[in-house]
């Protein structure tokens, strides 16, 4: 294998590049990144990045320094060709060339698909003041809007991005409402008991939480707003969010946190199977042995996990299998994610069957610090901790050891 192209220059792409070199690949390494930035860490974008000192608000200011995932020394060691600000638009039939939107193509022997996911948008016009939060540029734009004084912020979606953004907005002194279509936030991820706990976090934190209602549309004023710089916005500025039950929520800033869709459009027309992600076997190998997929875009063994930890754990196995030209190792990672909301740190690890029951193992939700375990068929399958890191680590290790032993 002379050339490997990593398509995607975020967390999973960077980890794949690192693994290629660490596992002895000394050929030509090309990294294609759609964003103009070197790899950076996304989780802080909804947390510290939004709430950092206003004196750091300049682009490239102090708030952005901790985001950098790599440095000059490592970039030198990787000896890769970085094609940043360039979108991959296609892959030829046998994945021997990656086509780019600037008209170039990269002739390659192996491909790591690490194109991630994009924030889902609401249908219809997209007036100024309406944001998604996925990229550094998204976060810069939102932060700039939030620096205009006290705003009425409506967050659409009570998932992790929505909850963390709402928490950050409240910390900045804004008037915040979260709209969640389900009866409780984070139901699919955490189940009803812990979803109820998270609903309390919103209320205790000073956020208005409206559940069980969808969004009918956005209201806007027709005249262009002076703060609008983005040409992608249609004329006008958002004024309110209309709910499906008819209520109208006045809004200066709207954050749309309704999930992310895997970036697979560029693979249309190839023989790769795409079904809400690039379909891979348990070892991240696609239907072509010289193409592997990692991170948010990869559906590995039937599961697509948009977790930071998956993006860092999949590449080792994926690269090993790519270099071996077949699946010699499968993924045994235990799902893990965390979220910081209203000063509480939530950590979750494991698998949560829909009918799992929750038992508080240590501490108490009323005190805001506890360890809960999810049990199914007499076994602990997952754990959730709120500000309870040490007991959580113990359970997480036990779950991980059991998962590895089961493979």
């Amino acid at each position, binding site marked *: 294998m002379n050339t490997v192209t990593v398509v995607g220059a975020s967390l999973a792409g960077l*980890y794949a590049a*690192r693994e290629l070199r660490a596992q002895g690949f000394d050929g030509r390494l090309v990294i294609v990144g759609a964003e*103009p*930035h*070197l790899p*950076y*860490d996304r*989780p*802080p974008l909804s947390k*510290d990045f939004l709430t950092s000192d206003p004196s750091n608000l300049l*682009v*490239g*200011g*102090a708030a*952005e*320094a*901790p*985001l*950098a*995932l*790599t*440095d*000059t*020394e*490592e*970039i*030198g060691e990787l000896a890769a*060709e*970085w*094609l*940043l*600000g*360039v979108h991959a638009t296609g892959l030829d039939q046998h994945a021997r060339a990656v086509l780019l939107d*600037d008209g170039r193509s990269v002739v390659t022997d192996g491909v790591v698909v690490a194109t991630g996911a994009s924030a889902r948008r609401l249908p219809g016009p997209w007036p100024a003041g309406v944001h998604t939060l996925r990229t*550094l540029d998204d976060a810069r734009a939102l932060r700039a809007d939030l620096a205009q004084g006290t705003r009425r912020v409506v967050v659409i979606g009570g998932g992790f991005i929505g909850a963390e953004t709402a928490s950050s907005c409240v910390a900045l002194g804004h008037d915040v409402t979260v709209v969640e279509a389900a009866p409780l936030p984070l139901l699919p991820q955490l189940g009803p008991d812990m979803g109820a706990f998270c609903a309390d976090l919103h209320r205790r934190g000073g956020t208005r939480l409206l559940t069980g209602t969808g969004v009918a549309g956005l209201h806007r004023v027709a005249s262009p707003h002076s703060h609008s710089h983005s040409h992608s916005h249609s004329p006008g500025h958002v004024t309110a969010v209309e709910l499906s039950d008819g209520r109208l929520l006045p809004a200066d800033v709207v954050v749309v946190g309704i999930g992310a869709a895997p970036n697979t459009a560029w693979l249309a027309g190839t023989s790769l199977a795409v079904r809400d992600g690039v379909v891979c076997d348990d070892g991240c190998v696609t239907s072509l042995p010289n193409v592997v997929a990692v991170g948010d875009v990869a559906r590995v063994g039937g599961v697509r996990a948009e977790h*930071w*930890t998956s993006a*860092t754990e999949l590449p080792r196995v994926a690269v090993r299998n790519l270099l071996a030209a077949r699946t010699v190792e499968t993924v045994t990672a235990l799902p893990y994610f*965390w979220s910081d909301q209203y000063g509480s*740190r939530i*950590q979750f690890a494991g698998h949560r069957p829909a009918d799992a029951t929750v038992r508080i193992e240590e501490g108490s939700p009323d005190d805001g610090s506890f360890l809960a375990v999810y049990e199914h068929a007499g076994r602990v399958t997952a754990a959730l901790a709120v500000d309870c*890191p*040490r007991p*959580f*680590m*113990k359970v997480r*290790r036990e779950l991980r050891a059991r998962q590895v032993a089961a493979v």
Partner: protein
Amino acid sequence: MIPVCRLEDLPAGESVRLDTTPPVAVFNADGALYAVDDTCSHQDASLSEGWLEGCLVECPLHAATFDLRTGQPTCLPARRPVRTHRVSVVDGTIHVHLTEPAAVPVPVPASATSAIVPAGVSGAGSLSATAHSTLTGEGSAA
């Protein structure tokens, strides 16, 4: 020299966090005492709440692991060391002797990306070029 606690109040396998600026974590690793900056060099998490195994501590948030003897990370995602501090026991009380902030080596972040990155990435340097000045600034000002 900052008093921490009585030696008997920090049994093997335990740790304690000092509310200094920045906070410091003190560990009893199987009888050996170590002190390092409490905040993980990767992201905001308290190493005093980490998993202690031998003289290694694993961060509770992303499992970055540090060698308490040197402060060096032994695996990703941490890439920078945490400061180590000298520990002494005087009359049965544990004390920490804080290391000067300037003693922390500052890595050289990517600032010269234009030399490495081919055309079309003029914006690429902005994220990490500023990391350079900021990290340096933190190192000398903290």
